[in-house]
């Protein structure tokens, strides 16, 4: 503070332009002429002491038992104890209990003063809704809030009804008249969504102006495109690719959709940090999520369901270890999601609650990896059709593997057949010398009881593989028969390994049916229009007079006979192995196919015309230019030709004249 001394009134030659602001108590001034006119408010504002309003550390505790004087001491002691138990230490003196003097009883609430506002907040968080005893539950409020609540405007304002705007159909591309799919390209800064049409065409379906993102990704069913931004993930969809949803996960690096597109998993290498004063809500991270880096979101609502940490206990986030992605594996119907803690357990969570299924993880010692069983088409029909409760819905099933011996270098790869009928396990093992690796394939039939292992089911010793290197494999057409090789394998007990018995090269067989006892096998060519052979093979032909280990390897294979069933599509053994049933069935619309094939020319003409039309409507401008060029050229040529004709006529006339002369 500077108390200004009055400006000396000097002689008129010296002009002091000396402005003084008086602070603090008004001093008797020698220059009182404009004292009242000085505006002090800015200074007052600046130096105003921010008083603690003093009530932030006071809570109103409701729901306290109503007592009389005799119990007062006991109640206060009990309450202080209760508070202290929850980690908020208070003293009896801090409590003020209003007293109803007329009845001589307490009013059922009390004011508690804490050391500071933080303590009060903590108490509010921990003790609100705290059951004090059987009849009483604490309700805590800030003292300051009580006033606010009391002053709440209670007139009811009817919320404005938002006009309903129909959303765009998210699978609009399915309605494309030409049945085209879409693909997205990301080149430089430019994202383009194109129609996947005929070769050499790339009609742009949409050119979004998305900015500053890491990459784009389709959702599994193609409903959305996700872009990864610094702030989080955005989903876009519909024919005009409008924003559909966003998920605030800062610095997100990886995303994973659930198979039915109901949920989204996001991952970032940075642990979640919730800054002070961040927006809170179901769509945002709460302080509880700090330190985690994996989040599960509901796509439709945009709500955050749960967060996880991908760091295992004991590991520091800095330790560089190959992370498994996807970190969460979804069951095929989106009902469950599971994550693995290697070597310890698999945790299965129910959706949408994200609680642990069965309230506990599956503890499996040494578990390394697992896979969900996919849903077959049949299962989908059963579970999805017409809302009826499925007769016997397939339960979600997962398979995991643990090493037989810890530290054994064997590696497994679990591979489900797409329909969930078979599980193939590929096992890589070191040979005994540990120099090379060999690989086993084990196939489990998942639809049958006790999941028989294919190799064991065939009396434990044999299996056959149909393989093909035909270039036509994978693009079947009418009249195309794919050449295949059939190989029989048998377990060699001496080596404890499957050995090739025999390979039958260049067959057409594409089906193998083992007899129930596993001795005979039928190789069939099914589903082909030209070939329909059935071959019966005996793999133990000379086993009757065979002595263990004496016969030559693979000599017991003998072709017993062949048969033919035109157009055969199904082959099945009877359970006794005495009979074989074959049947030929065809789609009922085969007739139509035939007529189409017969009149292919006419059918294809329509498409050819369409193609031609498309080719020619490249761009109206270009066509017009070309038309103009052609017209110009033609006109020029015609002119020249006419000229020549005239000229020739002249020449002829001249010659004629000469001759006449």
């Amino acid at each position, binding site marked *: 503070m500077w108390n200004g001394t009055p400006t000396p009134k000097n002689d008129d030659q010296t002009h002091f332009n000396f402005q003084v602001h008086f602070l603090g108590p008004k001093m008797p001034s020698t220059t009182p002429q404009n004292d009242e006119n000085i505006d002090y408010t800015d200074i007052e504002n600046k130096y105003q002491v921010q008083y603690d309003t003093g009530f932030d550390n006071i809570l109103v505790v409701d729901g306290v038992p109503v007592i009389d004087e005799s119990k007062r001491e006991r109640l206060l002691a009990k309450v202080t104890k209760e508070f202290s138990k929850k980690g908020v230490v208070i003293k009896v003196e801090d409590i003020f209990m209003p007293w109803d003097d007329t009845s001589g009883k307490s009013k059922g609430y009390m004011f508690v003063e804490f050391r500071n506002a933080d303590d009060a907040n903590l108490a509010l968080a921990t003790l609100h809704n705290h059951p004090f005893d059987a009849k009483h539950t604490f309700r805590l409020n800030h003292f300051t809030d009580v006033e606010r609540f009391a002053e709440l405007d209670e007139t009811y304002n009817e919320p404005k009804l938002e006009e309903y705007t129909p959303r765009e159909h998210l699978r609009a591309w399915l309605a494309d008249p030409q049945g085209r799919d879409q693909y997205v390209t990301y080149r430089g800064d430019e994202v383009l969504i194109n129609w996947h049409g005929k070769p050499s065409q790339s009609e742009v379906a949409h050119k979004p102006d998305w900015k500053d993102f890491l990459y784009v990704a389709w959702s599994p069913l193609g409903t959305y495109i996700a872009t990864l931004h610094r702030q989080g993930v955005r989903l876009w969809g519909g024919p005009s690719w409008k924003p559909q949803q966003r998920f605030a996960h800062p610095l997100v690096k990886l995303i994973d959709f659930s198979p039915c597109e109901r949920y989204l998993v996001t991952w970032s290498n940075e642990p979640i940090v919730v800054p002070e004063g961040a927006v809170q809500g179901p769509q945002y991270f709460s302080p509880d999520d700090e330190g985690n880096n994996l989040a599960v979101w509901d796509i439709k609502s945009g709500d955050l369901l749960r967060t996880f940490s991908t760091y295992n206990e004991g590991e520091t986030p800095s330790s560089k270890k190959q992370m498994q992605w996807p970190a969460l594996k979804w069951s095929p119907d989106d009902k469950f999601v599971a994550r693995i803690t290697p070597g310890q357990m698999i945790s299965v969570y129910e959706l949408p609650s994200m609680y642990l299924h069965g309230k506990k993880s599956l503890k499996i010692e040494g578990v390394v990896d697992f896979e969900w069983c996919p849903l077959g088409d049949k299962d989908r029909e059963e579970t999805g059709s017409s809302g009826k409760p499925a007769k016997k819905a397939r339960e979600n099933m997962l398979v995991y593997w643990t090493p037989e011996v810890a530290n054994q270098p064997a590696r497994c790869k679990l591979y489900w057949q797409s329909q969930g009928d078979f599980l193939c396990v590929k096992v890589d093992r070191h040979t005994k010398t540990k120099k090379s690796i060999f690989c086993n394939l084990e196939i489990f039939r998942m639809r049958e009881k006790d999941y028989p292992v294919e190799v064991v089911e065939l009396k434990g010793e044999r299996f056959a593989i149909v393989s093909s290197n035909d270039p036509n494999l994978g693009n079947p057409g009418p009249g195309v028969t794919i050449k295949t090789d059939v190989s029989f394998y048998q377990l060699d007990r001496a080596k404890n390994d499957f050995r090739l018995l025999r390979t039958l090269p260049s067959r057409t067989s594409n089906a193998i049916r083992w007899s129930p006892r596993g001795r005979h096998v039928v190789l069939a060519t099914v589903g082909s229009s030209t070939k329909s052979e059935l071959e019966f093979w005996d793999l133990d032909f000379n086993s009757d007079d065979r002595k263990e280990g004496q016969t030559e390897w693979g000599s017991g294979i003998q072709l017993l006979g062949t048969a033919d069933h035109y157009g055969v599509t199904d082959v099945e053994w009877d359970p006794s192995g005495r009979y074989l049933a074959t049947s030929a069935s065809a789609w009922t619309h085969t007739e139509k196919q035939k007529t189409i094939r017969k009149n292919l020319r006419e059918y294809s003409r329509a498409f050819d015309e369409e193609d031609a039309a498309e*080719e*020619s409507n490249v761009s109206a401008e270009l*066509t017009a230019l*070309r*038309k103009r*060029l*052609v017209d110009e*050229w*033609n006109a*020029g*040529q*015609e002119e*020249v*030709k006419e*000229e*020549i004709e005239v*000229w020739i006529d002249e020449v002829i006339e001249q010659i004629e004249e000469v001759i006449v002369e």
Partner: protein
Amino acid sequence: MRPILLQGHERSLTQIKFNSDGDLLFTCSKDNVINVWYSHNGERLGTYEGHNGAVWTVDVDPETKYLVTGSADNTLKVWAVATGKCLYTWEFPTAVKRVAFNGSGTQIVCITEQRMGYQCAIRVFDINQEDGTKQSKVPRHMFNPIGSKATVAAFTLQHNTIITGHESGKVALFNVKTGEEIDNNERAHSDVVTDLQMSKDWTYCVTSSKDKAARIHDTKNLMVIKTYNTETPLNSASLAPNRPYVLLGGGQEAMSVTTTSLRQGKFETRFWHKVFEEEVGRVKGHFGPINTIAVHPSGMSYASGGEDGFVRVHHFDESYFKAKPYGDLEIID
């Protein structure tokens, strides 16, 4: 269709020509021989031996009776196509770079090189069609074009008028009688004109040049009708009858071929749309620059001769004739 590879020359090709029926293909090269082939199967019918230097140029009369060839041994020879016998030889002070028959086969025009103090000369000879061995020794007309030397020449529809291409890129019309330059287009090309071929009706012609462009000119007033700009020096250009295409061939200069890869060399035959001036396709196959291209008179096949010493005869596929890549547009040939 697979091309027919004609392997009858030991050095690079200089010019190839179909006869008017299109059944024969005459090829000449720097190895002193002229070959004649059946164009449909590539079988060699015979050779014309007698030149002692690189044969620069060849042409055949409309009746396929006489063949004229010009060579670096400073001679111009007339051959009987059927027998392979040399009927007459003119000798000049310098090499013969270009010969061409007129439309009726009664005259030939020949260009001799400018060298050793001799100027580039253009001569026109009458051809005695009755007896090939009895030709007049002196030319009917002779003149020295003023300015840049001529590299290519051909008769036009007008009597006594020839169209020439020059080293400077000039295209000009000359009256052979007077040696007077009737008309010229100094800036037809910016580099040496390498080839000049007439259209079916002789009303326009296509020229190719080292300036990487090919142009169609009106033979009457030398107006440039169309321009085809490529990215490689061109050695030859030919018009495909019945289809609106121009075939262009060229490639890296022969001397820099060894330093460029096959792909960079651009040794493909380019098909350009005659009217739209757009490239429509390429046919590759040569290992060196393409020196000369000729299209069958009926448009059913074409042949290209390269610096690599091979002639490739391509018969067009069915789809070539059916394809309408630009829609239904009637284009007058």
